[in-house]
């Protein structure tokens, strides 16, 4: 690495790499953002998850949100979809739990059993 051009090239290569991975169906995290989720702190949970993904450099993870699913008392609710695995639904996910789910489930492939509300196998 010697010059600004080298840096630019590295940046472009990295961006292309990120794009490839996000198109390849990596893990997906869904945060419940209905009125009940928002009132329970879902926004802060979402931001904590984004920050933890950033820290762990997990750029292949897709984030999305959903509305109220009728379990308002267990909000914030977070779903984790790992490729080829059943969907895992977590309840009462505060920012700290959100970060731990990223590290344990997304990074280390170990779901955190005691916070799971439901496991849905749609395959």
């Amino acid at each position, binding site marked *: 690495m010697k010059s600004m051009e080298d840096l630019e090239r590295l940046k472009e290569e990295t961006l292309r790499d990120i794009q490839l991975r996000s198109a390849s169906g990596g893990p997906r995290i869904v945060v419940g953002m209905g*009125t009940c989720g928002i009132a329970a702190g879902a*926004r802060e949970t979402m931001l904590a998850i984004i920050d933890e993904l950033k820290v762990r450099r997990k*750029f292949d993870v897709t984030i999305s949100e959903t509305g109220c699913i009728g379990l308002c008392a267990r909000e914030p609710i977070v779903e984790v979809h790992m490729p080829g695995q059943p969907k895992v639904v977590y309840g009462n996910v505060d920012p700290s739990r959100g970060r731990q789910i990223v590290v344990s489930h997304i990074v280390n492939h170990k779901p955190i059993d005691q916070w799971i509300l439901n496991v849905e196998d749609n395959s």
Partner: protein
Amino acid sequence: MARIIDLSLHLLDLLQNSAHAGAGEVRVSIIEDEAADILQIRVSDDGKGMSSDEQVRALDPFYTSSNSKKVGLGLPLVAQAAAMAGGSVAIDSEESGGTQVTVTYKLSHPDRQPLGDIPATLVSFMAGNPWIDLVFEYRGPTGSLRSDTKEIRKEGEGQLAFVVKFEEKLRGGLSLAGYRPDRGGLFHEINGRS
């Protein structure tokens, strides 16, 4: 007991309605007008819109457009917080013609909730709905900010990279315009945000 404690959370709820209505572009404007003693928050979208009948019922907590639940508390809670702060909600919509919701508050009203973390709301919304274009305008005590996600987004950029950049731009621009997340009416100044 969970509560919606500031206006940025009400804004997030309004944005969710736009996303639910299938919006492709959402415009948000926040105006703090000290001379007129008005705080106005407006959300306009190009979603599926509401019939005049739906617009009336939208403020009824026991009405919802959703099939999977029986209540719809978003707009009623927004309206309640506005009414407590000497303000109101106006809904302007037509079927398949988008919806504009304008919420006004008396800026100096003792019960006016603080704005809260506006960047957190916009960033979490864009993280969850990356296909929506957002145009955000803020007019504050010392300046203004206009931010258009179409101009910030780069071809081929990952979702996470965009979100991080968007947040930096918002926080920088807003603080220059005099935005303060914790400035609310007398009641909120004394009691903080608890």
